[in-house]
């Protein structure tokens, strides 16, 4: 039963006095708070960047296909970032997710081109690889107690090397038009992968924010000891987040292959940093101090507008990495700073 141990008349009296002021407080939540700079600073950042580049490059920047191309590109980043997000929720880093994407892309291309396999079977193999990588990461982290950052940096590097060994650095063009259709085909002018990425973001959001499972995952990330004492099976949960991360890496790999029409050797690393930057910049959005799915998506779009703008202005290619590197540090500093202001235990001894 859930009825608390009721006290005495004194409590009741206090309650009636207080409930008035309390409901007053609850009603104070206004629609404009949704738009406060504190909650969605990245949206304002995006608007500023957008305005600036529109002013600088009125012809190039406002073109429709600039936007559809960018969204198509970012759909893969969104999926990788969700793969980063889910383990981070449980306080675990997965640095290998982008390399999982690269490896599954290579495996798909080889299976379809050299072994004439149907894309559905190849995709299933890719997802299986993602699951296996997730389990491996999970075992190393939960049973051998290697710090997740180090463990997945290691597995990521190994995965990258296997990727290179398989492809030999060359790409294998795919001719299966039904498969290529997934990457190129569009609805209302927006490519399929964008819808898939948004659908995955909705699923991740629902599970993390609106189920008991998601709540327990956040609890592990926020206080592993308290979560364990509250009966959360910590190992099982961490394992599951890493398997999900592996699967998301594989889905990103499948869609990347479909978009490019081949495997893309050496591209993995360039997805990792934007993914991490978005997750931590996302933690400063919507739910302050807590990583979350929509914050991540918003951050990716804002960062992409910036990167795209610099691209079009004609700054050289290195600006991408430069921009994302700065963004990652800035986002981390911001989230630590915003936590510091709230995380100092007040009266705790």
């Amino acid at each position: 039963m859930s009825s608390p141990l009721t006290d005495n008349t004194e409590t009741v009296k206090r309650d009636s006095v207080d409930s008035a002021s309390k409901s007053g407080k609850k009603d104070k939540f206004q629609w404009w708070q949704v738009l406060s700079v504190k909650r969605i600073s990245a949206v304002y950042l995006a608007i500023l960047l957008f305005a600036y580049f529109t002013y600088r490059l009125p012809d190039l920047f406002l073109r429709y296909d600039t936007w559809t191309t960018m969204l198509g590109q970012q759909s893969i980043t969104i999926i990788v970032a969700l793969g980063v997000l889910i383990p981070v929720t449980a306080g675990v880093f997965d640095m290998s997710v982008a390399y999982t994407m690269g490896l599954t892309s290579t495996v798909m291309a080889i299976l379809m081109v050299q072994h004439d396999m149907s894309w559905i079977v190849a995709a299933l193999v890719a997802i299986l690889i993602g699951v296996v990588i997730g389990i491996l990461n999970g075992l190393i982290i939960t049973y051998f107690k290697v710090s997740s950052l180090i463990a997945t940096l290691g597995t990521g590097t190994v995965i990258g090397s296997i990727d290179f060994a398989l492809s030999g650095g060359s790409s294998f063009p795919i001719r299966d038009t039904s498969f290529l259709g997934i990457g190129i085909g569009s609805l209302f002018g927006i490519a399929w992968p964008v819808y898939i990425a948004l659908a995955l973001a909705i699923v991740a959001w629902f599970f993390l924010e609106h189920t008991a499972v998601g709540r327990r995952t956040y609890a592990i990330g926020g206080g592993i000891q308290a979560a364990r004492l509250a009966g959360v099976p910590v190992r099982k949960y961490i394992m599951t987040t890493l398997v999900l991360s592996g699967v998301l890496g594989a889905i990103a790999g499948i869609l990347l292959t479909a978009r490019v029409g081949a495997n893309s050797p050496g591209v993995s690393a360039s997805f990792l940093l934007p993914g991490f930057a978005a997750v931590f910049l996302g933690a400063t959005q919507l739910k302050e101090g807590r990583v979350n799915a929509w914050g991540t998506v918003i951050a990716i779009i804002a960062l992409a507008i910036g990167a795209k703008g610099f691209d079009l202005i004609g700054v050289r290619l290195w600006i991408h990495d430069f921009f994302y590197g700065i963004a990652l540090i800035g986002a981390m500093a911001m989230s630590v700073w915003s936590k510091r202001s709230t995380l100092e235990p007040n009266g705790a001894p």
Partner: protein
Amino acid sequence: MSSTDVGVELSEKGAARGSDSVLSVRDLSKTFPGQQALANFSMEIHAGEIHALVGHNGCGKSTLIKLITGFHTPDPGATAEFLGESVDLYGSSAHWREHVHAIHQDLGLIPSMSVIDNIALEHGYLSRAGKISWKAERKRVEKLLREFDSYVDPRELVDDLSRRDQAIVAIVRAVSGMSDDSSGLLILDEPTATLPEREVQVLFDAVRTAARRGCAVLFVSHRLADVLTICDRVTVLRDGNKVAERSVSGLTRDQLTELIVGDRSATTPSHSRPAVDRSQGDPVLELKDIATEQLSPISLTVYAGEIVGIAGLDGSGREDVTRVLSGITQPAGGAVSVGGEALRVGSIKHSLDAGIAMVPRERFPEGLVSSMTISENLTLPSMGSVVKGGRLSRRLEVDEAERWIESMDIRPRLPDKDVVELSGGNAQKVVMAKWMRTRPRVVLLEEPTAGVDVGAKRSIWEMLDGSTRDGAAVVATSSDWEELAAHCDRVFVLADGVVQAVLHGQELTTDSIARNSMGQSLGKKEDSNE
């Protein structure tokens, strides 16, 4: 509290081996908001003297150490002399403090570094032309270690040393940091709490060596045996007041106990639990011969509606009982049953399934998830009632949180408040509410009211009374003996892992807990660490 005997005793020289005053403090006081931790304390300690500082938890011992080492600033008006010169107690970086060295229970060594490095970190390396002269340094450290009867290779890692050699390294480091003639003050804070008896003797030898070299030693200990064995003089603190200072020679164990405990009959609050015959209830929790590294086999039965306290000093094994029952620690042996059914010990999940709830010592990070709100923490152990159709219902969750916030009077009354922003008392109420919500059959508590204000203390015990009326069994460990005496039906008193007494009814007083917690006699401490 009277301090009349202080003046008389001060003139007595006692068995002090030297007569040069190392540190003398006068009129040292420290007031924290709402509490005077130390009042007009004066003492003098001489070179070569081993001076014991004893008293209960909260008597002001640690405050005194922190004032001497400069961690706290005393109230205005205090004066001090160090080696005959008037010194500043108010600046934490004053030069004289370089000659004051405190060694705490954890020794403060860096396990992954060598003995040489650990010692040199304190005073710098011997070097020639900017290059560390390893050979000279090694010789120097070796010589120091020999003086203290330790024959370890200075190049060994501290981690690889025995507990005893580690303690010696800590002492060597302290005295080597002092001026050449070792005239300084060495403060040992509970140095024997984690040492087996045999090694305690070796540590004593090292402390005596330090004193012989001219160090003044302030020896803080809970163990009367330590005081009677090694110390020359003893200062007793009670509730922030110095109640006695005298020579140890001729002092008996009983006299010392009397000085520490004092006559509390006037101040002890009367037992507030109604004397009900609890044995009428059914046994809810039964422990049979549960043992751990620190705990000799203990058996106890807790009946429905009963509150059982477990008292003991730090290192007595008092929390091993709650740690084993909650599934955190795997016991070395023994059996537990809850409601007649055997419990598989050593698993948090099995303990929770059996209806055992644990309110741990540390609110963060054990009791609460610091990044979460009141309502999120409340529902964490059992979310079934707030999930509707597979979806976590925010409305149900907030409604439930509001009910608990109201009945527990948690402030502020905001379900969405982050728990880190709560005061100690309110945070503890959230931990309590979170477990009461699961309607546990057994409630375990560690230091349930540490850092909690008086009002919250009352509501926490009221809440426990309430749950015992519903038939729960409560086991509380605490170093606050007044509280245990006032609220428990029975109290088990542990010393060195052995039950010294089971107190109930008229026998259950703060005094009797204090007496029994000091253990039986010299040298009886079991050598369980080896």
